[in-house]
């Protein structure tokens, strides 16, 4: 178990460092510039240097904050993320605990993120932070519903919450082929769940400066940052399991296939970010309740009907 924990922490940090580098490279090349080039080969070690700098920074605690809550928030955002890795099946053997409610565990713990955002925003005693926190809660509630419903249509087809069972059910054809609408809805909701652009309303920098983490500095801010990228990895991993056949592939070992698919989805999410402008807050909520949720329900009903008929 301890080995597993160390493994997870190592994976989380390396993955976050890689993703930040990847994000910067993707952004740079979309914008016709090279991105980080100085530290390491093509700036590969740039994020390591940045992380070291972040650790060396002074942790500033403003006077008027609600201290216990303020200090707890970065920890609360990070812990559930570690738990999520318990059930992700990287390959048939490489899975820490193959729980029979795996997918439920992931959705349950990933909703905890919003609690910590609320704590951070409220305790910071900053108007911009409160705005960010309130927006974040409304957004997460609105987008969790379609996210769960789309996942439910897959679970209906498989008949199990177990992630390995879901992968096993895709031995002939990936679910993305059968359920393209569900895949699209899932990707949109996942982007919103991880507060990524164009749904980055809680930290909309041109309006709220930095949103809920305005008052955090040093490694406390680093933890929020780390959690964001790890969350991105988790939602992409779940998308891979649900729609892209998990570790399934040819020639290359299963783990490699799994990671290729995960990073492909992450690239897609990054591609969104560097293309679209940000939605307005009320449009975002309207979009969730008037478009995504009805579509998700229709998709679920059609799936249920199809299962009943055939």
């Amino acid at each position, binding site marked *: 178990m301890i080995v597993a924990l160390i493994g997870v922490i190592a994976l989380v940090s390396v993955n976050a460092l890689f993703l930040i580098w990847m994000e910067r490279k993707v*952004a740079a090349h*979309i*914008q*016709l*510039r090279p991105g980080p080039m100085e530290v390491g080969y093509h700036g590969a070690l740039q994020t390591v240097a940045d992380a070291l700098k972040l650790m060396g920074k002074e942790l500033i605690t403003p006077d008027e904050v609600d201290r216990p809550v303020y200090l707890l928030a970065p920890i609360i955002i990070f812990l559930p993320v570690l738990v999520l890795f318990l059930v992700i099946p990287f390959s048939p053997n490489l899975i820490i605990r193959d729980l029979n409610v795996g997918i439920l565990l992931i959705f349950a713990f990933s909703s905890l993120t919003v609690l910590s955002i609320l704590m951070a925003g409220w305790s910071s005693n900053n*108007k911009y932070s409160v*705005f960010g926190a309130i927006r974040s809660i409304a957004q997460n509630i609105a987008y969790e519903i379609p996210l769960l419903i789309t996942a439910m249509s897959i679970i209906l087809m498989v008949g199990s919450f177990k992630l390995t069972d879901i992968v096993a059910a895709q031995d002939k054809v990936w679910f993305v082929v059968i359920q393209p609408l569900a895949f699209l809805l899932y990707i949109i909701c996942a982007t919103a769940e991880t507060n990524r*652009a*164009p749904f*980055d309303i809680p930290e*909309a*920098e*041109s*309006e*709220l*400066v930095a949103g809920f983490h305005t008052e955090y500095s040093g490694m406390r801010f680093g933890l929020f940052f780390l959690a964001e990228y790890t969350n991105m990895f988790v939602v992409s991993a779940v998308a891979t399991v649900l729609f892209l056949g998990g570790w399934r592939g040819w020639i290359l070992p299963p783990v490699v296939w799994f990671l290729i698919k995960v990073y492909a989805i992450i690239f897609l999410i990054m591609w969104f970010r*560097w*293309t*679209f*402008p*940000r*939605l*307005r*807050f*009320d*449009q975002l909520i309207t979009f969730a309740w008037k478009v995504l949720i009805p579509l998700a329900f229709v998709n679920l009903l059609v799936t249920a009907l199809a299962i009943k008929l055939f």
Partner: protein
Amino acid sequence: MMLEPGIEEKTFYLNLGPQHPSTHGVLRILLEMDGEFIANSEPVIGYGHRAHEKMAELRTYQQYLPNLGRVDYLHALAYNHGYCLAVERLAGIEVPERAEFIRVITSELNRIASHLLWFGAYLLDLGAFTPFLYCFDDRENVVDILDRVTGSRLTYCYFRFGGVRDDIDDEFIAGCRAFITRLRSRWQDYDDLVTKNVIFINRTRDVGIITPEQALKYGVTGPCLRGSGIPYDIRRSEPYSVYPLFDFEIPIGERGDIMDRYVVRLCEMEQSLRIIEQALDKLPNGPIMAEKVPKRLKPAEGEVYAAVESGRGEFGTYIVSKGDTKPYRIKLRVPSFSNLSIISELIKDTLVADMVAILGSFDLVIPEVDR
């Protein structure tokens, strides 16, 4: 500041600026918020005050030239032009035709640079990062072309009383023509990436509507006025320089919302390209400086007002001369200042996100407001 304390406790104050990512400078807007809605607001200006008008009283006419490029650094050549125009009218200096053509070409190039920068920075306000870099790629071309003839890349000090400082060469003309083709090939990409984007349309359609009456009441000029459907452009309504020789349109909007202002600016860039093209075709030979411009300029006693169309609207220079080498008083009528005055009325009862979108759509240059 001027606002009354909240009548009910449900409102609170939010200080937007002077250091805030979307005020583009040191503008502060005091907002009285009712949740995410703005109940009242008050722009507070003056953080970047540099006393440009007072400086003019202490300097000779020539010595004031470099100041103009710093009032509005984004469309510096229009400011050069406006001031030179006023002094030339005051002192009765005739500008040779070639110099006028060069003035128009460089000034229109600068207008494109200014609009491109607005386009990019505005998308940045709305949360899209990438168009900003694409615009800067294009803008870099303009700046390179202007660098070749004016010697600087931002705060130009190129126009002189009676002409321009340096002549343009063939490489400049070739660069201009290459740039015209290049920018025209980019419109399609900008359309696909931004103009047709459903998120962008939702953010800008029917948001921040300026009615024509409001615009006239507040003295709004430039693309903001034309977005409201009033075809007022100094280049047409009070022609200066050689603008009457060229065939170009004044794009106007219908509804007066942000989208209309955006479309007006994009169309204006295309019209500027047309003007440059025609000017390059008709470019006459001849001197670039008027003869007999005295080194110590001493205009006769009198007053003069000259207006030019800058990227943001009407830029007017009002000079009072007492027959000295230094102006007695200079008043700069800057478009951003008048355009900013309408903001309180527009952002009442809108969301913070809309406020940012509306503020950005004015294309404010804060040093110009503060002077």
